[in-house]
């Protein structure tokens, strides 16, 4: 290979960064559609939107991958996938694919990749997606980039440019897999916006099965214990979130956050120091090491706006920040800022929202 003529991105060590001829056949962008007990995880549709954009840039097709047991409604899921942008779906059914297990899913997905040869494969960064992605990438000996926050096509190499936070979110880095296929990436729920559904779209279904008997599989799924619905905190998919930070000063003051959340039907979020202090459950942490959220409204009280918090919530449609320090970093990316003491602003805001909503739903026009 003539190294001098190859345009190389940053990299050392004389390794091959050029795509071998036999891998140039790999075409199309795939999304692994994650489903469990009759429901598709919404992250799969978010990825479908991202896949559509990548495929349009490449002039390629988007395929959804559905794997499951004989009784699962995979065709229904496929129709939904078409609505969200898939051109085709690979539907693999086998008794051993009822309920997620690493071994049969790794086998099934690996075989599918080797047969149909996609150039890009996206999975949700969930406990299922990460478990599967790591095993499949190792089997296929290809590159995998975890927890991407942005996916693009590099114009020169036409490779997937996958951007992810690094060093605790202080910096971002863009990672590419140049000489191997498929290029694999995982993305956390809520990082990508939900695409619009077009119910009139349709697509092709390519059916298949997996030649693997239950007796060959070592790991058995004995039981699934669903989380009690009473303590299920669905922060990632909440439409409205009221979050508090260390600026709330005392755990008792968090009651003010809860009060506003109740009026708005919102979930309560928090920063890491608040979680570490034990004021709220760990599931409520927003940010780099917590949840990524994308609500329509995010109200942040007593939160400085550190980068590790910001990466988890800057996708919100509207961010309202309440902070006593006019120079707090959160005002650099909030849409509305109130400089003031959260302990007095929150009750006033709660009361104003309550009165406004009550007046409006009574059919009246609210006097300003």
């Amino acid at each position, binding site marked *: 290979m003539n190294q001098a003529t190859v345009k190389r991105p940053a990299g050392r060590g004389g390794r091959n960064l050029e795509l071998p001829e036999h891998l140039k056949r790999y075409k199309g962008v795939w999304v692994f559609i994650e489903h469990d007990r009759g429901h598709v995880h919404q992250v799969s549709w978010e990825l479908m939107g991202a896949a559509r954009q990548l495929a349009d840039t490449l002039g390629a097709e988007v395929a959804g991958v559905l794997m499951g047991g004989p009784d699962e409604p995979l065709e229904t899921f496929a129709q939904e996938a078409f609505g969200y942008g898939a051109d085709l779906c690979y539907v693999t059914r086998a008794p051993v694919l009822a309920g997620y297990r690493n071994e049969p899913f790794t086998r099934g997905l690996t075989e599918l990749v080797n047969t149909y040869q996609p150039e890009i494969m996206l999975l949700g960064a969930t406990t299922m997606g990460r*478990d599967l992605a790591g095993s499949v990438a190792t089997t296929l000996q290809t590159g995998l980039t975890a927890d991407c926050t942005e996916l693009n096509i590099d114009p020169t190499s036409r490779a997937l440019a996958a951007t992810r936070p690094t060093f605790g979110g202080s*910096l971002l880095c863009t990672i590419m897999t140049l000489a191997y296929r498929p290029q694999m990436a995982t993305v956390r729920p809520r990082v990508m916006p939900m695409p619009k559904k077009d119910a009139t779209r349709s697509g092709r279904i390519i059916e298949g099965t997996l030649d693997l008997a239950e007796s060959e599989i070592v790991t058995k799924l004995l039981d699934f214990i669903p989380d009690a619905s009473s303590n299920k905190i669905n922060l990632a998919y909440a439409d409205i979130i009221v979050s508090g930070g260390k600026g709330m000063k005392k755990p008792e003051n968090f009651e003010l956050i809860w009060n506003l959340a109740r009026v708005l039907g919102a979930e309560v979020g928090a920063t890491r120091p608040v979680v570490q202090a034990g004021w709220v459950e760990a599931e409520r942490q927003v940010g780099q090491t917590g949840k990524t959220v994308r609500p329509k409204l995010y109200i942040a009280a007593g939160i400085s706006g550190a980068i590790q918090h910001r990466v988890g919530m800057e996708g919100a449609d509207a961010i309202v920040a309440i902070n006593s320090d006019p120079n707090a970093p959160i005002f650099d990316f909030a849409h*509305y800022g109130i400089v003031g003491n959260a302990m007095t602003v929150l009750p006033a805001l709660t009361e104003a929202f309550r009165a406004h909503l009550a007046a409006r739903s009574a059919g009246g026009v609210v006097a300003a």
Partner: protein
Amino acid sequence: MHIVVCIKQVPDSAQIRVHPVTNTIMRQGVPAIVNPYDLFALEEALRLKDRFGGRVTVLCMGPPQAEDSLRKCVSFGADDAILVTDRAFAGADTLATSYALASAIRQIGREQAVDLVFTGKQTVDGDTAQVGPGIAKRLGLQLLTYVSRIVELDMDAKKIVIERRAEGGVQVLRTAVPCLITMLENTNELRFASMPSMINAARVPIRRWNKDDAGIEDIEKIGLKGSPTVVSKVFGPTPRTEKAEMLAVEESSLRDVSLNLIQRLFTRHPGLEQQLLERSDA
């Protein structure tokens, strides 16, 4: 019983600072620690050793200084510590790392058969959660990720039952030993180092393995050469161009500020108001 726990030495990320102008990491003076997630794996391994007897070997790939982290693990009760260190490993991504660690575990197994391999859920500096699954695949071990509890371990029947965190619930899985477990965080509480362990930690020779000692067969698969991913760019987050609309409290009453906010918010986001109204109708 013989358990191998894979650990990584990482910079204490709480203390990392980024240079505001050059966007480079300021590593100077940042202390190195054992990846916090790995300590849950270590504790779980030590508990199994307490119950079943046997040995815990800690394994780390890293620079010579990573010896400190291995000693730390010995101070909690690990019996043996191996540092896989060689310039040839530099620049490894998760695929190359799992190849090197898998080779080393195979090598450890030649001295004494390995029953269980533990890793943390992920590291705090890489955050990928890919190395555990990679090692399992390369060693042909059953993979159990995000394990929250070991329910049952029967060493005669070579069977293990665990609970694993899944979306919306917990999977109960049974599999065969040997297998690889990635331990979920906050599932146990790390013990205090005992006096004898601390003395042992100060004295124990940390074994250093280069690539040959670690049984690396294919040097194309380690370090930068064995890494399919290429870091093409490192950069700081872009500031938002649009600034927040500021509502100051000093000039007006809290009520006015609140009403003002609500009005602006709902004018800009009418759907939001609609949604809230529909909710309160219900």
